[in-house]
């Protein structure tokens, strides 16, 4: 009985240690430099120095992402200046799923397709959706994990404030 007990504890400890080691990957923090990537326009994120960039990771199967699109469309239209850019990154493995989502939402937002998940890995995404607000020096100004109706105004305020600071 005692051996069984010990074995059970050993299994639990091994599973816990393995999971801890596997989950040890660390994502971006506020103040870190945002990893560079190519945008759908052909530019690179590093070309946008001097511009505030809102980077949103989304997928077709993510319900909160569906809610975030009308808001992002509004923000992109409202802050259409040289000092702000909104970029979305799709992580669907199947591009057709993403295309269906885009036609359903009638989105005109620029999309970078990343079916291999290389970018979310670099950014260290913890949940879907996640958005990164990048300042004009390509540093992470804030990270918004998830999308909730109640947080929209606060995010917009941060975007607006950051654009004002670039003046």
């Amino acid at each position: 009985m005692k051996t069984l007990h010990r074995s059970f504890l050993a299994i639990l400890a091994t599973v816990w240690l393995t999971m801890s080691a596997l989950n040890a990957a660390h994502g971006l923090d506020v103040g870190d430099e945002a990893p560079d990537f190519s945008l759908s326009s052909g530019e690179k994120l590093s070309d946008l120095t001097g511009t505030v960039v809102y980077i949103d990771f989304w997928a077709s199967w993510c319900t909160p992402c569906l809610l975030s699109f009308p808001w992002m469309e509004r923000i992109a239209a409202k802050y259409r200046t040289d000092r702000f850019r909104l970029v979305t990154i799709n992580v669907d493995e199947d591009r057709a799923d993403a295309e269906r989502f885009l036609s359903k939402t009638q989105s005109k937002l620029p999309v970078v397709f990343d079916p291999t998940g290389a970018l979310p890995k670099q950014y260290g995404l913890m949940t879907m959706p996640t958005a990164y607000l990048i300042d004009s020096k390509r540093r992470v100004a804030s990270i918004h994990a998830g999308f909730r109706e109640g947080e929209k105004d606060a995010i917009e305020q941060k975007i607006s404030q950051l654009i004002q600071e670039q003046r």
Partner: protein
Amino acid sequence: MTVSRGLLIALLLVVTAGCTPVSPWQKREFAKPHMAISATPARTKFTQHIYQSKEAAFGGYGVDGGGCGCN
């Protein structure tokens, strides 16, 4: 004793082989309706609202973001 210890090590190896974290961007399968814990999300959300207000317990039922763990 040596045999049981060997068995234990083998068992540990088998168990740990099954451990792999699913990244947030790989949770498409979990988002499918048949992966949700509840078949009636609206009713579950209503019930959860009661629990949330009475017990300050929140989430974990795949209501808001399907079963993908979104939000």
